[in-house]
């Protein structure tokens, strides 16, 4: 049930952002953790359709992420499953997580909310009470000060 949320304001209309997220050409232009060209992207953006993105990282790593589109509501919402068939984050091998993207029109463009959820979750454990990562952050910050004091003594 763990996950991350990112919110980004983009000075472009929702249809443009939506196209970049639902076409192979679009996805190939931005996907990946570093500024390296995507090796190959295949995107069939309809409910039940599949996508596959092969990208590289600066450490020479080869990664391929893939999944299915679970919701496609142009130009507002995209939900897809996510898993690595090659490379990926350590500890997430062979697991399926989920990406939820909401595009909200704002005065000068689009607010993008991207949630990557169900990281490390078991298939049986489907929780709707996502959203504790902020609380977790606070805990960790607090715990870090406690820990530092502990080490001093």
């Amino acid at each position, binding site marked *: 049930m*763990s996950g991350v949320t990112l919110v980004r304001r983009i000075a472009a209309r929702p249809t443009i952002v939506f196209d970049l997220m639902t076409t192979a050409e679009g996805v190939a232009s931005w996907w990946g953790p570093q500024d390296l060209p995507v090796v190959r992207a295949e995107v069939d953006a309809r409910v039940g359709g599949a996508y596959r993105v092969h990208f590289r990282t600066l450490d020479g790593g080869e990664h391929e992420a893939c999944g299915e589109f679970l919701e496609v509501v142009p130009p507002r919402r995209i939900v897809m499953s996510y898993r690595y068939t090659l490379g990926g984050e350590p*500890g997430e091998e062979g697991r399926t997580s989920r990406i939820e993207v909401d595009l909200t029109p704002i005065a000068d463009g689009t607010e993008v909310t*991207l949630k990557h959820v169900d990281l*490390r979750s078991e298939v049986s454990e489907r929780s709707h009470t996502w959203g504790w990562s902020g609380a*977790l952050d606070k805990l960790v910050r607090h715990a870090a000060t406690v820990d530092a004091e502990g080490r001093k003594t």
Partner: protein
Amino acid sequence: MVNYRPRDLDRVFATLSDPTRRAILARLAKAESLSISVLAEPFAITLPAVMKHLDVLGDAGLVTRSKQGRTVAVRLSPAPLRRATEWLRRYERFWSSALDRLAAQAEHKEAEARDAESGEARR
């Protein structure tokens, strides 16, 4: 480099999936250490139920218990929480960087679209 042992991470995240256990950790984060009875006070569950949650938290390495005279002091153990957050950070960095490029591409296309529209308007 932090070593992410999948089983330890699973255990921490599974432990955190329960709201009572998160509330217990939040209380411990504010205090140096608490006795089990003080810790249990605000929760509308029985003391044995609180003890069970503490067992789960202890197994995941999130709390430690030590006997102090006739009471048991419970403390937060921060290292597993920190590892869990660091692991999530990797995903945050991944998407943050990807969204930077998505924004740059979209804004470039927006400028092109506006140029085309104003060209049509002039015709």
